[in-house]
Each structure stands twice: as C-alpha cells, then as structure tokens.
C-alpha cells in the first residue's frame, strides 16, 4: 500500500530524513535540560550558600550568618534533587536501545560511582592534618576535579563537545578558585561552574 504512494521530491525526502532523525534523537537520548540544568542550579544555590556564610576570606565571616554545616546541607540537598531529575531523564529515554551503548553507559556510571567514593576515602585520610578553614575548599576542589574530569571523559565517550568543554570549564574554575584561596572557590563554582552547567543544558536542548 504505502509502496504505491507517489515518490516525493528530493527536498521532501531530505526534510523527512532530518525530521525523523531529530524525532529519534529526542525520543532515545535523555533530555539535556534535565541532565545539566539541575546540576548548575544546585551548584549555584549550594556553593552560593557556602560562599555567603564563609565570605571571600573563607573564615566564616561572610555577608550572611550561615554556618558551613548549613551550607553543606543545602549543597547536598540540591544535588540530590539534581541527581533524581537526571535519573528520571535517563529512565524516560532508556529501555529501547540494547547493545554497545548499554555497556558504555554502565561503565561510565560506574566510573562516577568509583571516582567519588575513592575521592571521599582519600580525602578523609588527609583532612585531619589540614587547618580547619582548609577542609571545605579541599573537599570542594577534589569533588569538582573528579566531576570535571568525568564530564571530559563523557564528552569523549559520547563525542559530545559541549559536555567535554563543560568538563574543561569546571576544572579551570576549580583550579582558579583553589589558587585564589579562601572562599573564592565557592563563589567561582557557584557563578561560573553553575552558570556553565546551565548554559550547556540550554545549548544542547536548543541544538538537539
């Protein structure tokens, strides 16, 4: 039946191909808006709260009377929300594709899990000998280094330049914040790190 429909013009065929491929990508790839934007917002709010409590000196005398415990709780709370939204995006897109991509995704997910756990164990060994005001920046710097490296790796695995560049950006911001010292790392990660993740999500969504 469909075989006997009149063959459309080359323009129409080309448009058909493009429309169909866009539709397929949207259906089978996770929504970048949910993959990146919630993390950017979490970093903006979480690191922002830490900065407001700690101040540029990082000595706890920031513009607002917020303890580091509260700041850390806000950071973790918002990051857990971001994690849940990311999982929702992955579940919504997944399930239809079997094969190489599944293995690749599982390995990549495992890399995040192992990376963060290893980082936490290693950091915990060194934290007792650090000055008290260095503990927060130390954990933060390591945490975001692991995240940045894994974004780069993800960009390489999925051949996704924006994701790779986000990784580079996060690592650069992380290094600059650490070198400037004090509470700079919180300020820079909140504004530039969070802003970078939001921009990446919006860009990928617009161009998908």
């Amino acid at each position, binding site marked *: 039946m*469909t*075989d006997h*429909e009149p*063959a*459309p013009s*080359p*323009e129409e*065929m*080309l448009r*058909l*191909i493009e429309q*169909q*491929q866009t*539709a*397929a*990508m949207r*259906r*089978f790839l996770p929504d970048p808006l949910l993959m990146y934007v919630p993390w950017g917002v979490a970093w903006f709010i979480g690191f922002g709260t830490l900065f407001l409590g700690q101040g540029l000196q990082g000595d706890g005398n920031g513009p607002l009377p917020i303890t580091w415990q509260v700041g850390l709780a806000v950071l973790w709370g918002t990051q857990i929300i971001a994690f849940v939204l990311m999982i929702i995006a992955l579940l919504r897109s997944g*399930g*239809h*594709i*079997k*094969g*190489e*991509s599944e293995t690749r995704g599982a390995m990549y997910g495992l890399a995040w899990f192992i990376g963060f756990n290893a980082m936490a164990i290693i950091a915990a060994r060194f934290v007792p000998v650090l000055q008290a005001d260095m503990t927060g920046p130390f954990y933060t710097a390591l945490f975001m280094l692991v995240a940045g490296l894994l974004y780069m790796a993800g960009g390489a695995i999925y051949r996704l330049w924006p994701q790779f560049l986000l990784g580079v950006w996060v690592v650069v911001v992380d290094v600059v914040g650490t070198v400037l010292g004090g509470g700079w790392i919180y300020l820079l990660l909140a504004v530039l790190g969070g802003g970078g993740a939001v921009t990446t999500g919006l860009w990928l969504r617009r161009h998908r």
Partner: protein
Amino acid sequence: MNNELDPVIHAQARLKVVATLNTLHAGDRLAFPGLKDVLGMTAGNLSVHLSKLEEAGYVEITKTHKGRTPVTYVALTQRGRAAFDEYTKAIRALLDTAGGTP
C-alpha cells in the same frame, strides 16, 4: 534521474525506518515497540516494511525473550548504513543540480 535512487529506501515509510535506525551507534539494536512509537506506524505496517528491508539485507532482526515475553530488536546492517549514506548523497546531488538549473 530517479532511477539512480535506491528503490528499497526511496519510499517514505522505509526511508523513515532507515533514517531512525541510522541514528543508533554501531553495535546497538532498537526494540520494536520503540521503533514503532517514534515512527507512528502500526505494528503490521512496520513489520511489512521491515521484512522488505531484511530481504534487501539492510536490517537485521533479532528475536529474543525477556522472561516469557518475546522481544524483537532491529538494527541496520553495514550494508544498510552504506545504502542510507549513498541515498542521502544522491538526494543532495539531485538538489544541487536542481538548484543550478531552475
């Protein structure tokens, strides 16, 4: 000029099938229901087109079981991918020549 175009792919429904499968990475397969949804075709109609594509050696159909329910996966073969590449090249070439002579 149209006789240069691959007749297996040069039909809207099958072109959509091949274009969709071409977005998968090599080594991946797509579940039949997922393909059906994204194409907006009925299962029967899609099956007919898939058999034609399979006869041409463009797609590979794998039937397995998930527990007790049978699941069908579809993937483009290397030949299918090459045919799709050729087809898009031919279409673009046609457009280029058409653009030159109005």
